């Protein structure tokens, strides 16, 4: 018998969720909703930008969702959820007062600290802006710690853009360069049309002193990271947030493995130097 194991069995069960109550819901786009959740036991959820929770609606299953709120205000848990399947749709359509079940926060975040004293480049595609919003909020809150700040946001169409009001505020600031591009414009769109990589040259980056944080579809991250590396940004200074199937979020269920990496524990945020090879191998 191993006594140390006995000690370990006494801890809280990582697989048992805590109930949270939906306090506010903001409809972002036709399929995406931001939820503000309050823990029933009033114990706030301290997190680092880039971390996620395992969140479920009773009876519908549990899925990993990034925390999209302000890490300086942990009392209210914020998630932006795109309804793509059963679980996410069920979560996205909860109403004020409904209970959701939450475990976490889990995973390794963006490590914004590391970018202190450098230029910060945030590139987001679609729902990818959700895990990056805490980065933007953090950088803006401690703006003096960083050099230049760029935010490049790509969206399929103008009406699919997340957080439009906040984006307006950020655009209004002189200490951050906000650039929004869409794949397909509508009549009222006066901004850019094209992919995010098209926007990189005009930024006039200082490659060696740039920290880039990317999140979006896997191909978009790969193409952007490759473009940045080609510009001379060290791969270790390019961070991407990976997505894999997760049943536990704590490195036990085996589902999120990317060869030797557990995306839930070792990531979801990785330096591009770590995952570049793994991202190019199909079906890994």
């Amino acid at each position, binding site marked *: 018998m191993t006594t140390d194991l006995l000690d370990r069995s006494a801890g809280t069960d990582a697989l048992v969720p805590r109930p949270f109550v939906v306090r506010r819901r903001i409809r972002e786009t036709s399929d995406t909703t931001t939820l503000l959740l309050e823990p029933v036991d009033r114990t706030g959820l301290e997190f680092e930008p880039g971390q996620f929770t395992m969140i479920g609606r009773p*009876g*519908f299953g549990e899925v990993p969702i990034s925390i999209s709120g302000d890490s300086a205000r942990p009392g209210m848990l914020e998630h932006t959820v795109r309804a793509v399947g059963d679980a996410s749709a*069920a979560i996205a*359509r909860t109403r004020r007062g409904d209970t959701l079940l939450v475990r976490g926060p889990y995973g390794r975040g963006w490590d914004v600290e590391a970018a202190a004293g450098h230029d910060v480049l945030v590139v987001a595609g679609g729902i990818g802006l959700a895990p990056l919003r805490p980065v933007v909020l953090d950088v803006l809150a401690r703006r003096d710690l960083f050099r230049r700040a760029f935010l490049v946001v790509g969206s399929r169409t103008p009406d699919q853009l997340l957080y439009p009001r906040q984006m307006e505020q950020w655009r209004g600031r002189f200490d951050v360069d906000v650039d929004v591009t869409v794949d397909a414009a509508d009549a009222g769109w006066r901004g850019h049309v094209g992919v995010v990589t098209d926007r990189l040259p005009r930024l006039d980056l200082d490659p060696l002193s740039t920290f880039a944080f990317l999140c979006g579809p896997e191909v978009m991250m790969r193409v952007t990271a490759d473009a940045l590396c080609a510009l001379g940004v060290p791969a270790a200074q390019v961070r991407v947030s990976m997505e894999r199937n997760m049943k536990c979020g704590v490195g036990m269920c085996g589902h999120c493995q990317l060869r030797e990496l557990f995306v839930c524990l070792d990531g979801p945020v990785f330096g591009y130097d770590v995952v570049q090879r793994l991202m190019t191998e199909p079906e890994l």
Partner: protein
Amino acid sequence: MTASAPARRRRQHRRPKLAVWKFASCDGCQLSLLNCEDELLSLAGAVEIAHFTEATRRSVRGPYDVSLVEGSITTAHDADRIRQVRDVSRTLVTIGACATAGGVQALRNFADVSAWTSLVYARPDYVSTLATSTPIAAHVPVDFELHGCPIDRGQLLGVLVALLAGRRPRIQVETVCAQCKRRGNVCVLVARGTPCLGPVTQAGCGALYPAYDRGCYGCFGPVAGGNVASLVARLRADGMSVTDVDRILHTFNADAEPFRTGGQAL
């Protein structure tokens, strides 16, 4: 959200209407619903059983929220009838091998039906039947298919519960082997050389057969992506004849790909 709001309003105002329809079949799958003895009355409280001839003479007019369809299409009349059923059903769920794969009666698809009819009936001219037995999905769009001959009671309840909650039913795609190992059965193929279709059959029965010391005969149909050719190679290597391989693949899901090719799959 917009998509769910009408569903919610509906639920508040009335219970969803459930209809059960029968085509060419043995009634076993419908019976599985009546076999939910512990849940039957609460189920009847949660839904309005609007049409179910095996259980009630009252039939409430459609449209129906959920239609469970048992049986395959073997007559021209039934081919018309299933279209009418589809028209009055919001969600149509097919239940059982007959409805999802044509059933055991689809063995006619491999034979000469007029010869068959005269074998059974003295006056084959009195019998109107199609040359084939085809699954419902070959005639109308189907929202969800529940496999098995017969279907599993637990899976049926799971599907109904999901639909009641406004959720799409989900059944894990995996082989009978996976359930067999979880159950702690001893593999009859490996330990006895008993022919078993478990490695290529969709799970659902709870790996019943191996627990009864016989091989799986595939009544839940082929698992998606199953490698029938490799299993046939093993069965042949164990000394099974092509005829016997054909027989084991050609039972209740005979006309489902890739069971259809039978011993030729190699």
